């Protein structure tokens, strides 16, 4: 029997994987994919819980998260292109012009 706890565990694991990816991956696009994984983990939590508590608020929130994620992806890819045009690389280690 799959209960709400399983869903919560799964989304916590997904969120952790996403966070780990953001911290360790070098390519900015992959970092973005990891952030999407984090946001989808959040969506899973909301849907499972909303069903569990029997109130629709959580499912409505998922729509907001999806919209925000889409807007962020649009702006993010535009910025990635701007950065690539200037530096011809998307390696996070090359974000090094500004430092102490």
């Amino acid at each position: 029997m799959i209960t709400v706890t399983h869903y919560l565990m799964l989304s916590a694991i997904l969120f952790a994987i996403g966070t780990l990816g953001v911290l360790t991956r070098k390519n900015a696009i992959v970092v973005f994919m990891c952030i999407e994984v984090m946001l989808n983990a959040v969506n899973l939590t909301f849907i499972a819980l909303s069903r569990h508590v029997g109130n629709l608020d959580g499912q409505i929130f998922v729509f907001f998260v999806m919209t925000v994620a889409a807007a962020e992806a649009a702006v993010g890819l535009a910025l990635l292109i701007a950065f690539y045009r200037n530096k011809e690389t998307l390696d996070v280690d090359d974000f090094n012009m500004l430092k102490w």
Partner: protein
Amino acid sequence: MNQESLQSLLPQILLALGSTAILLGGAWVRNRRLWLLVGALVAIVAALVAAFVEPPQIDILGMYSASAYARFCTVLWSLTVAATLVISCRYVDIFRFGGGEYASLMLFAAAGMSLLSAATSFVGLFLGLEVLTLALYILIAFRHGDTRGAEAGMKYLVFGAVATAFLAFAIALIYTATGTFNLQAAAVGLQAGDGLRPLGLAGWALLLVAVGFKISLVPFHLWTPDVYQGAPAPVSGLLATAAKGAVLAAFLPLLVMSGEGIADIKAILWLLAIATMLVGTFAALPQTNIKRMLAYSSVVHMGYLMIALIVAGADGSRALLFYLVVYSLATFGAFGIITTFADENGEIQDYDDLRGLAALHPRRSALLAVFLLSLTGIPPLAGFFAKFGLFQAAFRGGYAELAVIGVIASVISVYYYVRPVIALYAPESASVCRDVAARSETLLLVGCAAVIVILGVYPTPLLSLVALIIP
């Protein structure tokens, strides 16, 4: 959504619609100055509506409030954005920004900030914060072909997107623990000693991480100096003042409440405040770039403001709002001066470039000195009075240790604030004369300095206004 709730949201609707109209209009009429001024006008109208039109409803669909406090915040952020647009007039010409896009994004940011500080539910909070952040991502990287700007934008984007994910997960956990999106109810729900409390506390901890990113508390401040340095100076000014103030303002009503759950949160805030004040101060000391120095200065000032947030109550709230206004004026002014010194070759940032500038540009140098000294807290200026009120509130609220650390941090801060002033008034003369400032820029900055001086000797009007609107 009925007519009353629409009417109560009028200032925010004005900002959002005005922004859309400017975006569309800007595609036909390519006139930078026109759109900037239209944008400033829209922001001022929104501020006037928020200040003088009584809303028919206070609670809007359980998501936003139209209380006096929320309206005061709307006025503050709209005016900051209007001032930023006016001060950018010459700057956008120099760097050939698209005027319509720039003004429109600024207004979107204003709408986001005002929704954020008016939020009474997590849905409203999330949406307001994202509207603000999405507009800022673009504004930071607005300078076309500027590598530093693009890098600053990327850094803010990666940190900001992670903060968004943390915020969303935090809301999910708090929703799990309490079953509600309402901010007040969620904080009250935390007090019940049931089995879900650890989950709720984990949620609040994640929320603090997200907020820590947004207002750059130590240890989440690493993006701040890089982004401020790379972003266009007027945008850095907005980032340091209104964008941070709006986040703080959203949480002030929450921490005014008391209870077991809030006490746990305050214990973490206490640690963050101390770390922020100390690390920020010591990181600011070796800086030789005025934008980076101002970035660390904003980190330290966020630490001071955390003290007021922890003290809470009427005392803390009054000190916080007064401090926020005074700090915003001075920081906006300092970034404004950097904006007026910009020319085709870029902005003046290094202290070496500031050297001896006072002989060539005595008025603007004097203004910059006033703003920096107000941030230090030198007596006749408003910064002194604001700091005095804040530390006094901390003493009275039983947080003497925070006040003492704050006082030590402000004593050390004299060093890094006075360094650029000494460079300005150095005896040797500067190699290059900068452009003449536009009249609107000068008027605005003189106005800021005048308000700082007046509030320093006669703070009563602002204090009584603040006392009137605190939640």
